């Protein structure tokens, strides 16, 4: 379920390696809304199928149900950005938890 509240995280507005389109931006926003406890369950060694099952928000065509995006997001792009998000959270968690936005 999408939370209507803005999350404490702001991975969405961290610098990008290359200019983002709305799909890249919305994918980061999607992870900003993922519960921290759930995100910490992620294991890089999982198969793609396990990841899709764990997230519960993939479509049967193999793409993420991401709203208002021109491009589809497959599990490969999903994992890449998720892992970047995990690194971001590990970096800022202490600071954010001490002083919530």
């Amino acid at each position, binding site marked *: 379920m999408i939370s209507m509240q803005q999350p404490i995280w702001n991975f969405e507005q961290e610098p990008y390696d290359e200019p983002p389109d709305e799909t890249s*931006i919305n994918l980061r926003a999607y992870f900003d809304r993922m519960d921290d406890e759930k995100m910490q369950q992620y294991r890089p060694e999982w198969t793609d199928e396990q990841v899709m099952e764990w997230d519960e928000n993939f479509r049967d065509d193999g793409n993420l149900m991401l709203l*208002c995006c021109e491009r589809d997001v497959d599990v490969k792009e999903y994992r890449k950005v998720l892992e970047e998000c995990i690194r971001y959270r590990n970096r800022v968690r202490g600071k954010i938890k001490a002083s919530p936005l």
Partner: protein
Amino acid sequence: MWIRKILRDLKKGVDSPMPTQVVSNEEFIPRRQTEQQKQVEYLIGELAKERAKKLGMDRRAFMASTMGLATCFLASNKVFGNYWDVDEAETWEEAAYQEKWPKGEYFIIDVQTHFTNGQVLPFRNLEFVRNMGFNLKNDAEAYSFQNFVKEIFFDSETEMVVISGVPTREQHRDESGKILVDQERTPGPGAILPSWLMAKSKKILNELAGSTRALCQGNLAPNHYWNRATNSMDRAATLEQMERELNLYKIDSWKWYCHFDPGRSGGGFQLDDENAFWFYEESRKRGMKLFSVHKGYSYQSRTLGHLANPKDVEKAALQYPDINFVIYHSAIKHGPNEPNWKESNKYDPTTGDFEWHSVLMDIKKRNPRMNNVYCEIGSFFGPLAIADPVLAMHGMGKNIKYYGADHVLWGTDCLWWGSPQWVIDAFKRFQISDELCERFGYKKITREDKAKIFGLNAARLYGIDVKARRKAFPADTLTRLKTAYLEKGGQRSNAAYGWVRAND
């Protein structure tokens, strides 16, 4: 896991011409099927079984008939209250429907139709589809188009469509400087309905029909060509594409999504920003003064989400009174279509306000003489009607109260919702209750109002001569194909292609 509604229905053995739950058009997360919707679905099944048996029809044929559709509204009335104008007799005999709703009473122009994203659908092997008279490739894209024609024109009363796009940036040239054409302009996956494809489909359809049945929109918007060195709009590239879409594609309106960024500009845009104003001026010089704009449904990105709020309509509409703005989805943000709408106060039952839709209504309240803004009702009226008819009364009641019946446009967002006949029938049968008219100052919707909303308003905006079209259509090839299709036993599939949860 998300699956298409058609698959969910096949698995559950559900066959209903009216969706009994909200489906996603990939612009919002739908609520799970509610208890009331479950009851409606169950009742549709039971009532249809009884009728089909007594009439000696197989259930599939019954559900594809006017009786099957009437049964859906009867079931809805039993659950939600007596809101839809449907007689028991209509569920037993086709003649009762024909008598009550004379064929051709309304001239229907659907200003929001989409293909099914190149998906190969199970109908492709049916004999009547193979012989529909199209000379197209044997691929997913071609079959999507055939299905579009079947579901929209053969299986519903829709007479004209506007093919509505999804924001896509076209690449002008390859590395050698050669000007690219068609598919070359949108390489790689993801280009769902680029301008070139809409224009091509419009041309194929109109040539096939021998008359103008389809119009199309152009996707170009102020942030599609971006100069990263100067971090500003690439006006030369934008003008090149503008000329192409107007002169070569012969688009009939622009279609803008302020919260998309296919040009990777780093953000979206607003209707009242400097780049948009420049675009209006250039477009106006070239004779195009119709702007269709997605507002409402948006993702919650901090950067982009708020750009779908209709707050920017006011300044643009006031500054450019000769330009018409059609606001898609009537700008409803999330509201009762989404899972946590109650907690988030997205709908206020004491006022009948929906988030962001109320912003659009307030603009007209502040500017009663503003005459160039229109409310489009695709994925607005339909989902509200199946969520709870009272919600549809508020939504339509406010659109008509503030903007007037001559400023509301018929759109369905089909094929996400399957063939649009169910929502056409719903609007024919729709009325606002005496209680809501009294409490909220809404007006009863007359048949004249419905005629305007179904097509006359769009005809005015798009410059369509309805009298001439009505004369031409009965003799065109599309009508002949439709007649042959029906004579061969062609039936509406009752399939919706939007997304639902696999376990819903």
